[in-house]
């Protein structure tokens, strides 16, 4: 199997499975090509880690104690509507999963798991991340941003982003389909404790690095990002 190791570089995967042997083996397998794998033993732990680590991809087993995969997926969807989630389950639980189509799961994998389909499904998740502007994007100015490495540059010349700038850019990209209000940004980046011009200054600095057209101002409402996956 040919797999580009760099493909999953920087990708964080959250894996929840209650059976210790399966959990250990699959985690080890994931670590063969992805360095950031968080594994947990039930749905509740999965939601806690999800909030803390903000993973890119989530794999949930359907049958788990404390909170099952379905409820965990619902909780995560509430926090991050576009996060790629897929479930693993037995054939006998297949019917129950038909009812959760609305959760927009990437796929569901039948247990026992198989390497090829596991990798294929992960690749599908990457594709969805890519389309959702969470991996490499290009701004109208030609500047490219790598969401995994947090690097910005043009034609191999890299610029550096401050922590707040990265946070703002990621936040705008995560919500690229809508206008993000100034209030939301203040809340997300500074937890509301901020002086009047801080956000405007931050946007100004970011525009210097990404290009003017990258961030559009919706008058009186807020900002929206303009980028394409590349």
């Amino acid at each position, binding site marked *: 199997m040919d797999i580009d190791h760099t493909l999953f570089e920087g990708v964080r995967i959250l894996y929840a499975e209650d059976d210790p*042997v399966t959990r250990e*083996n699959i985690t080890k*397998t994931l670590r*063969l*090509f992805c360095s950031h794998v968080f594994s947990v033993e039930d749905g509740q732990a999965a939601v806690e880690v999800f909030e803390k680590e903000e993973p890119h991809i989530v794999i949930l087993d359907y049958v788990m104690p404390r909170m099952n995969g379905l409820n965990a997926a619902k909780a995560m969807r509430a926090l991050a509507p576009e996060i790629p989630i897929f479930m693993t389950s037995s054939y006998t639980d297949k019917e129950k999963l038909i009812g959760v189509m609305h959760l927009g799961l990437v796929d569901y994998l039948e247990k026992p*798991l198989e*390497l090829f389909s596991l990798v294929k499904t992960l690749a599908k998740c990457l594709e969805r991340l890519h389309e959702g502007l969470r991996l490499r994007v290009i701004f109208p100015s030609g500047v490219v941003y790598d969401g995994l490495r947090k690097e910005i540059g043009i034609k191999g010349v890299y610029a550096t982003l401050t922590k707040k700038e990265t946070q703002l850019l990621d936040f705008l990209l995560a919500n690229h389909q809508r206008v993000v209000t100034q209030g939301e940004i203040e809340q997300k980046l500074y937890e509301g404790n901020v002086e009047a011009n801080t956000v405007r200054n931050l946007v100004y600095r970011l525009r210097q690095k990404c290009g003017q057209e990258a961030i559009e101002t919706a008058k009186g409402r807020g900002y929206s990002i303009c980028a394409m996956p590349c």
Partner: protein
Amino acid sequence: MLALYCQLFGVLHVSRDTTPFSTHPHQITLEDAARIFNVEEVLAFEGSSTYLKADVSYTQNVFWTKVEFKNTDTTPLPLMLQNLRAPVGMIDVWVFKDGNEVASHKLGMFRDSSARAVRSTKSVFYLSLQPGEEATVVTRLESLGAMNLTWEVLSTGQYTLKNSLEMVFWGLFGGAVLALIIYNLTMLINLKERTHLFYVLHASCAWWFVYAMSGMLHFLGVLDGDKIFVSTWFVPFLMLFWLSLFSMEFFDLKTNDSLSYRIFSITAWASFGMFVVMSFGLFTQALLPYAHHVVAFGYMLILFMLVATVRLVFKQYEGAWYFLIGEGTYLLALTFTIVAISARIELTTSLLFVLPLGMLVEIVMFSMALSSKIGRMKVKHRHDTLLLLEESKFAAVGKNISEVVHQWKEPISSLASHVVYLEGLLRFGKEKEMHKGLEEGLPNMKKTLFYLKDSLDELYGFFAKTPHLEPFFPAKQIALALQIQRSRLLLQDVEVVVACSEKVSITNNQSALANVLMILLDNSLEAFAHDPNRKGRKITITTSLKSDHWHLCYEDNAGGIALVPPERIFDTGVSTKESGMGLGLSLAKKLVTERMNGALHVKSSRDTTQFYLSVPV
């Protein structure tokens, strides 16, 4: 025989060889519409008859007859004179010898039968003639219905034989009807189906009608003669009323055939109406002169019902043929009788048995229809039971298989995860780590494989039928049952609390306990699934060993049993689940009582249900 008669000078010559015979051709019959004649005038009458037939249809007129006998034998001749029809109102007889009245008889149904010289179902009197002696018999007949105006003359021996045979016939008829009534009464008690009730009522009416018409009721003296006479007017309508209800109920016309239902409703209402109107005859004589008009109406009703039955035959209702034959025979018999009574053909003794026989055929046919229906129901019931049994067997097999699947899900997936990891090492070129991976994984893989094998053995033991008693650890069986249902319990977020000593061993039927536990768990899980919003789901299993019994209390908080008393949950076919077949808990009860010699009880409150199991150790 006619050659032996001599009607010279109007005197009928009689000897031992001439009986039996009818007085009809030899008597003088006078119609007395104005009621002006008296017995002396009739005795002295020398003209010819004003009415020539032997029978007269419905009339209110008085009829007189005169017939003269002479004994041509050399020995005394004892004779019995009998009127063919029992339901004739009043027959007055005067016997004259040498112009002197030697005897008179007050006969007819309106008269008390117990005061007569010869007590019989019909109007009968005794006449004795010495050798060469002559006698004149003058008769006055008056009734509210049809009449026979002649005397059937028999020797005493002939009369006794004929009367006895008739009695035997009525006895057989009455016995047959009574047997059918009793049979259907027992059916009514057993099956509690209204069809049998209507049948019994119909047959009772038929019996009454025949016994009234034949004079049996009058003979037995159960009621005043005039009441019995009147009952022959309204009982047939009551009979038709029950027959209509019987037909409706038998074919379940209300749900099956609305047109037929309407037809039989009409006949039911019409016959009930006529019954009510005609029963006023018990209280007033004013109605009776018009009563015979309703015969035509009753006849039309039966015809109407017959047509409706033909329709049911064409629609291929089961049992409709029996109805058609029964009603057809009855209608035919009735037609014959009406024709005879209305004096269109001459009445003979055998004609009198046509109607009872027709009626007997009718009620036999209806009874056959009923028993064939019961037979079909039995077959259907057996078929249904078999089907249910097959379904439950199939469900049980399916359940066992799904339990094996549940049991094996986790070990197989963990075994597969080893394969995934080892394949990953190989594919991603981590040959160096391969050795370490195998070293770490193999013991676990082996362990899992043996676990699969062991669990298979255990499952075999769990579901294998072991009718014999053997020592075992109930705690192990509880753990195994919970393990099998583990994923369902997890999915439904059910907390399970078990308080059971692992050291306790009991000697009983191990597989029966396993099955009972599975049924109880399955029952709780289905109830929980039915109520998705319930929080704090819990199953508590507590066991204790007291003297020679082992007790288990199984409690869930999946809502109580909505049955009063809750013990009804153990009845076969009783289920509070929409999809339930009501087999599980009844099977559990059976297993506990029959295989484990124990007891299973249930208590239920608004939220919780407790099952108490107690078995000998």
